[in-house]
């Protein structure tokens, strides 16, 4: 979670700036914020009351843009590019990075084709450069690139800002996880008990056999004829080993 630590100061700085200003000046602050190389979290800025006031005014485009950066992807931008102001190259880069994060949300294995489609990149070399330089070195994602099978396996991806409905699904996932681990604990307990009972039974069985052998040995020392004894000894030995 080093990204969070890196971002914390930047977030504080921008929150202060945003709460100090109003109206159209906020627009330029937003542009600055969205082009900042290490800032990927915008929900704190969105939470500042002066920002919420922008809703419905002429400057709401800036608010929309900020929302796009908080929750949306590059394809959202392309589809509704009329609604948003023009983006500078820094912002374009950042939006693409955020797009990768969103894709990593749903699937762990991202195919190159899908990535190329989402990011508007035509060749594999460019895609890999983008992933390596801008996503992995920035600390946003960690994973393995498989060029032969053309997919990117994500092991870790930083979190994006939460949409209001996502909290519920996160809680659901956590409860599932809890339930699974509880069941697993119970299963392990049962297995331990099973192992113990089986070893108990085995020990008892062995002891019984040993006792029988002792009895028989005593009988041999009393009797002189030994013909039936050896076979029963042999059969006892075989039963001993068959029980494992």
């Amino acid at each position, binding site marked *: 979670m080093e990204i969070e630590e890196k971002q914390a100061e930047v977030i504080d700085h921008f929150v202060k700036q945003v709460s100090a200003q109003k109206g159209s000046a906020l627009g330029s602050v937003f542009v600055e914020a969205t082009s900042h190389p290490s800032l990927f979290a915008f929900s*704190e800025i969105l939470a500042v009351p002066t920002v919420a006031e922008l809703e419905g005014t002429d400057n709401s485009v800036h608010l929309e843009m900020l929302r796009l950066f908080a929750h949306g992807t590059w394809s959202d931008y392309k589809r509704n590019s009329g609604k948003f102001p023009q983006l500078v190259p820094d912002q374009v880069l950042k939006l693409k990075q955020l797009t990768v994060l969103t894709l990593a*949300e749903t699937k762990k294995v991202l195919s190159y084709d899908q990535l190329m489609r989402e990011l508007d990149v035509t060749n594999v070399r460019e895609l890999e450069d983008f992933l390596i330089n801008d996503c992995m070195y920035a600390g946003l994602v960690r994973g393995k690139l498989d060029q032969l099978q053309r997919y990117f396996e994500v092991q870790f991806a*930083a979190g994006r800002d939460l949409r209001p409905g996502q*909290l519920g699904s996160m809680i659901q996932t956590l409860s599932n996880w809890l339930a699974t681990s509880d069941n697993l*604990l119970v299963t392990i307990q049962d297995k331990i008990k099973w*192992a113990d009972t089986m*070893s108990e039974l085995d020990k008892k069985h062995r002891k019984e056999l040993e006792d029988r052998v002792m009895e028989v040995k005593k009988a041999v020392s009393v009797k002189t004829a030994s013909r039936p004894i050896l076979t029963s000894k042999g059969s006892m*030995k075989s039963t001993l080993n*068959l029980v494992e």
Partner: protein
Amino acid sequence: MASSSSSGLTFKLHPLVIVNISDHYTRVKSQLNLPPSLTSTSSAATSNNNNNNSNGGENNQQKPPRVYGCVIGVQRGRTVEIFNSFELIYDPSTRSLDRSFLEKKQELYKKVFPHFYVLGWYSTGSDAQESDMHFHKALMDINESPLYVLLNPAINPAQKDLPVTIYESELHVIDGVPQLIFVRSSYTIETVEAERISVDHVAHLKPSGGSAATQLAAQLTGIHSAIKMLNSRIRVVHQYLVGMQKGDIPCESSLLRQVSSLLRRLPAIESEKFQDDLLMEYKDTLLITYLAMFTNCSSTMNELVDKFNTAYDRHSRRGGRTAFI
């Protein structure tokens, strides 16, 4: 009298020291042979060797004995690393420290570990006391600022961390009089590979080890406790999120982001290749076990047949009447 230290030294404690101190304490305590009901006659059965009684043994041995010793190690710059320890003879009633013994031990240790020197001393008990200051001052001629390592031998199942505290001495002005008082310092545990192996071994100790069932049970118990810990931590996060949803706890976005990135790592391994590999290994193990079983059975069968033959051949010597096979 312990506040937090301000000297800026970082302490690293090796587990060998903790094991040594607790071993010393246990030896002394068991050699005293304390009966469950306290009598004063038991105090007579004390001290032939490095025994130390805190109250001279006159009254009842209700209080567990205190043991004293020296800790040695290395100090590099601001880092103090405590490697080893040994016992000392100290009588708190007369406040006499056996100097010759200490010096002899020091010499012996210097021969084996030339870099180590005396860093301080240790004792057992629940809290640092005033009388400890005398010992502390006595050691100050060997090391100008000795450490005091205190081990609390009371077993507290609710306690989660080690009952070991490290005190330093600082000169504080109290009521206009500069006095040395003990101040607590924090420490970290540092292990060498050998120490890690032995601590691991002790942690997994089962009373009657050996047979396959107990080994299986031991391993399963280990997994069980690990999962239990994971479970409790997930529960904490879950409750936190539920509280946030209900509105009891103010929303903190950075934490939420971290939790969401964590949840995205589940399921941890899901690919088809994993399933294939897992099944293959599982079947391999089963096959090998089966094969071993077969070999066992066939060898037993062989023995049985041999015995049978010997038994029956004895009674039909002539004629080559071969039974069985």
